[in-house]
């Protein structure tokens, strides 16, 4: 078991988003968090990524409480939130270069990678001139470079076209084959070739 959470609860603006939530993520598994807008999916992902503190409950990485394994966990985590993390005045290549230094990504041929993501010819124009879907692809390029085991992705399919969605699900499948695990939110049903996707639905609560 890579990641688990016990009895998590989260309160935002006096509203209980979820309480006593248990969650387990095993190696080689894809877990989709589903639920209505405002049900607390992003809040849950932020808590699991260590960005926010839960009101109550605990998170364990490889059976160890997060308070003890935080550094270890962070080294093995790739978090891409609903904000893309792309600096709009910089080009795709420059963004990748910055991430490489900050996130310890693998050295690779960035040009080839961007080409496989359908961004050939767009490598060196500022990202603000790219479409929303293309910016998303730039941000998701990190997934091809990271060696992190746990991926936490908030709405990774937003703004992507069919071919990009196919490329991303293939990448998720190969990540799971290699013993990784993915936690993602999506409003569409997610199909990952060769893997079943477990679903966890958060009820919208008043």
């Amino acid at each position, binding site marked *: 078991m890579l990641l688990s959470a016990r009895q998590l609860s989260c309160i935002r603006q006096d509203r209980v988003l979820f309480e006593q939530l248990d969650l387990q993520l095993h190696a080689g598994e894809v877990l989709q968090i589903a639920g209505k807008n405002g049900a607390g999916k992003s809040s849950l992902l932020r808590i699991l990524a*260590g*960005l926010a*503190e839960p009101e109550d409950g605990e998170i364990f990485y490889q059976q160890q409480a997060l308070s003890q394994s935080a*550094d270890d966990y962070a080294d093995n985590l790739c978090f891409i*939130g609903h904000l893309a993390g792309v600096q709009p005045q*910089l080009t795709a290549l420059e963004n990748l270069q910055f991430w*490489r*230094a*900050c*996130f310890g990504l693998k050295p690779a041929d960035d040009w080839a990678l961007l080409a496989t993501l359908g961004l050939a010819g767009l490598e060196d124009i500022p990202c603000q001139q790219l479409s929303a879907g293309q910016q998303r692809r730039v941000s998701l390029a990190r997934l091809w470079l990271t060696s992190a085991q746990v991926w936490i992705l908030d709405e990774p399919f937003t703004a992507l076209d069919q071919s990009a969605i196919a490329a991303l699900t293939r990448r998720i499948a190969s990540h799971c084959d290699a013993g990784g695990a993915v936690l993602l939110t999506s409003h569409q049903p997610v199909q990952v070739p060769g893997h079943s996707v477990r679903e966890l639905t958060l009820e919208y609560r008043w």
Partner: protein
Amino acid sequence: MSHVAVFRATFQRELKLLARQKADWVNPLLFFIIILTLFPLGVGAKPNLLREIAPGVIWIAALLSVLLGAERQFRQDYRDGVLEQLVAARSPLLGYSLAKIAAGWLGSGLPLILVSPLLALFLGLSTEALTAVVLTLLLGTPLLSLLSALGAALTLSADKGGILLALIILPLYIPLLIFASAAVEQASFGLNYQAQLAVLAAMLCVALALVPLAVQKALKLNVG
């Protein structure tokens, strides 16, 4: 993921951004120039009065022009989610903060130092006073950049953080303003102003040691 690697990557990135977003460093510079050229016009043909108030005027102009761009320092990285990802990956934010502060100084402090000799002429400053202006700016503008970065980091998640930012950092600017303009004043009387410079240098050293740590912590708090 060492501090040095992150510092280098962030610094290079910020230099590219300074080259691309020229308004970021041209605006504060223009603001500084405008204030200092308007003063002689507003005060009128009273060279003695102008010479007397020059130290304070130059320093107030420098202070306000650094404040002008302060709010934007971390704003974009916060809005784009860059900071969020850095915090989630527990990247060394100290290297990131230091690089941001250093690049911020290159954009908002260094240009002021470079144009200050020219502007001091408008205010009728003597050569000794002019030297003092450049020296105090050399020691003082990095301190301004450090403090404004602290304010920017603290008010990051405030929606309209501009006024809050000014309220937080203006009191911290005041000792700097007092010692820096005192140094220039002493110099214009031909007196020794090493004591004031020493105080400025001491303030800079303390800030350099402590502020990046505080900035790092404030960034983490605001993102989490």
